[in-house]
């Protein structure tokens, strides 16, 4: 087992269009604000068209690091969708990996077309528990709706990650970054979504 080295690795998985890139940017910018060296690699372009997408976010105290996380070396996996969470964990997860997962499925075309099965959520949950350190689930779609908009699931998940206490950043730093990224009503929506996310996990994990 290779040691995770000096880098702190977060993989964010989802489906094109779910807002992986933005979630990754919010966390990455927060890290820069807090004085870390950051590499944040996204897939976008054609992958946005409903394909599987992931972002690799790597944080280091001293020197810059490469864009991709080595296999098995994600410290944290944030899944915006259950199937995609498991997909990235198969490659990047390990027994040390902490998992934060949106429990709302997004069905692949092959499933809709009846050519493939979407595994039962319980089976996915069980598999993650067996292979990883811990898993925290968040109903990000419902929370996003509470916050005011379906489309802020990614911000809810960012808040949920902040709320777990797994990240070494202050909540205020995230909120400062959110303010720098948005303005007006969009800022209000995202800030609300972020806070809903924070509350959802800080309760569960007992963190601040």
């Amino acid at each position, binding site marked *: 087992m*290779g040691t995770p080295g000096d880098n702190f690795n977060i993989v964010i998985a989802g489906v094109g269009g779910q807002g992986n890139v933005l979630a990754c940017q919010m966390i990455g910018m927060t890290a820069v604000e807090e004085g870390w060296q950051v590499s944040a690699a996204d897939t976008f372009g*054609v992958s946005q068209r409903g394909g599987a997408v992931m972002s690799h976010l790597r944080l280091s105290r001293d020197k810059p690091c490469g864009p991709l996380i080595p296999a098995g070396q994600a410290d944290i996996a944030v899944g915006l969708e259950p199937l995609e969470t498991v997909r990235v964990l198969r490659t990047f997860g390990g027994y040390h990996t902490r998992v934060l997962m949106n429990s709302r499925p997004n069905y692949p075309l092959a499933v809709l077309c009846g050519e493939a099965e979407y595994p039962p959520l319980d089976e996915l949950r069980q598999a993650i528990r067996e292979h990883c350190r811990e898993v925290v689930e968040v109903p990000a779609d419902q929370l996003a709706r509470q916050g005011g908009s379906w*489309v802020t699931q990614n911000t809810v998940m960012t808040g949920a990650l902040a709320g777990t206490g797994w990240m070494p950043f202050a909540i205020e730093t995230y909120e400062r970054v959110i303010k720098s990224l948005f303005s007006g009503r969009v800022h209000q929506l995202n800030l609300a979504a972020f806070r809903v996310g924070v509350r959802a996990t800080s309760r569960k994990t007992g963190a601040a």
Partner: protein
Amino acid sequence: MNTMRVVLDAPGQVALLTGNEAVARGALEAGVNYAAAYPGSPTAEVLECIAAGAEMLGVYVEWSVNEKVAMEGAAAASFAGLRSLTVMKCDGLNVALDFLTSLSMAGTRGGMVIIVGDDPSAHSSAKEEDSRYLGRVAHIPVWEPADSREAKEMVKAAFDLSEDIRQPVMIRMVTRVCHASTNAVLGEFPRREVNACLGPEDKFITWIEGHREQEDKLRRAAHRAEKSPFNTYAGPESPETLVIAAGPGSYYAEEAVAQLGLQTSVGVLKLGTTWPLPEKLLRRYLRPALKVIFVEEVEPFIEDNVMALAAQHLDEIGRTSFYGKKSGHVAGINGVGLGELTPSQIMAALANVCGPDPAHERPAPPGWPELAGRDLAFCPGCPHRASFWAIRAALELDGRQGIVLGDIGCYTLGKGRTGYYLLQTMHAMGSGVGIASGLGQLWRFGFSQPAVAVVGDSTFYHAVVPALINARYNQANFVCIILDNQTTAMTGHQPHPGTGIDPNGNPLTAIPLEAVVSGLDIPVTTVDPYQVDEAIQAVYQAVQGPGVKVIIMRRACALIAAKTSAAVRVYVDQSRCRGDACGCARFCSRVFACPANIWDKAQGKARIDEAICNRCGVCASLCPVGAIVVEQYQEKVG
């Protein structure tokens, strides 16, 4: 993309910039005057970022009709003494290559930098071409950054080199640089007075004598490369094993050395100036090394050139073993020479070459469930889905095994399930129309199938017009369907000559598709693909009878429309949906294959995933029992 941080006038501040943002920032810090591009992933965002600073810094920014014209415009600015930048993806460099190979024989004046985006693994491309070879063909220097921070500095240095050797300099970006963000320190924006003019002695004529100058200029560039800050070495003075790496692979190599604990025997020479090579520098580290490993993305470009160098200096360098793509030791994610590099694969290669180390062996633990793959799909509400359904229906109705030819754009996905596997050819921008033009002549050899070429609106202006002229003039028989979603959707909604706006959204006079087609004396009809039955009729009618015809299927990209559309809700009235008793065989969720149309297993009825539905309502018009409801509502306040 956040263009504001690219144009932030705050020298010394640390910003998280993507490679594309960093290139834009570097160009602005270098005082670029003229920037022109045609959008292509992975470098599409560069020009948009420069555009954000255009007004403040007095830069002319243009979305050009295609890459060749973009490069020609940038060359013009260089001829007049200005600094210019042109941006494209590897495919675009192919388009511009005719001009580039001429340009480098005639030379340039003001600094001119060409940004080319290669896409290893083809994340948002059809192919993973290695454009470094084209830079070599064109006799121009090729540099490769490993991350954003380096990309920004490289762009600035490239302008200086370009002005020094009076040649364009190409920077080869890869997706993992373009789309990866790293910390970068913002520099100052220059305040330069410029006055564009060509003196009587400023002549730029491509002629055979230019070849000698090309070679001289390359030698000067090679000389400068020896001292380039972009070539760095980390490792022991006399490495037993030398890793020669470029691009993000250099990070993977350093990380692998560290994780495998090989710091005392393995050195990593990171090359930023990939062509021409810094030969003395290379020879210095090749001499002690017994083994050399090449880490570069896609083709063995450095590998071939370094091995040739070693062969040339065999007496000096001595016996050395080379490991890379040729030997099969260094693989990309899809195999040797296939797909992008990953840290794990580089670690495996190093472990393999420097002695097996079980530390890196990490077989995936068993017990993960089988996971369904995720096909790319047209977005919910995408007008292309309706268009492809209509085209498919019309050709089936016609019954002569009509052929659909595609090219590059979102509609390329029409080759897969989301487009009902309709496309039978897919090559380059506009090439479907050229191929249709050829098929349209084959009746004299017994060919009796109708041919339909689908093109995007942006593609139409980029590359379709000459093929249509050819078809019309030579009397080919086929139908060209312009899938007009009123933007360049695939690369992120850039404007084109049909949209009537510039890169900053300022008005320009649009050139309507109908005007161009009518001007070619080709009959043109316009339909709304959301009116599926009308679209079917239009295509069916068009494929009857001879000649070339154009149908414009016009409907704004759903991603844009969803932001502005009226307050509408689309849902399934499950009391009307007949489920599997309907006889439609789950048309909406299974066959029409819109990701927002899902199957409610518990109820045995269709349902709409309203979180992703873009509310186009096309499924409602196709459901045979009218179970899908499109409901207008008053938007709630607050």
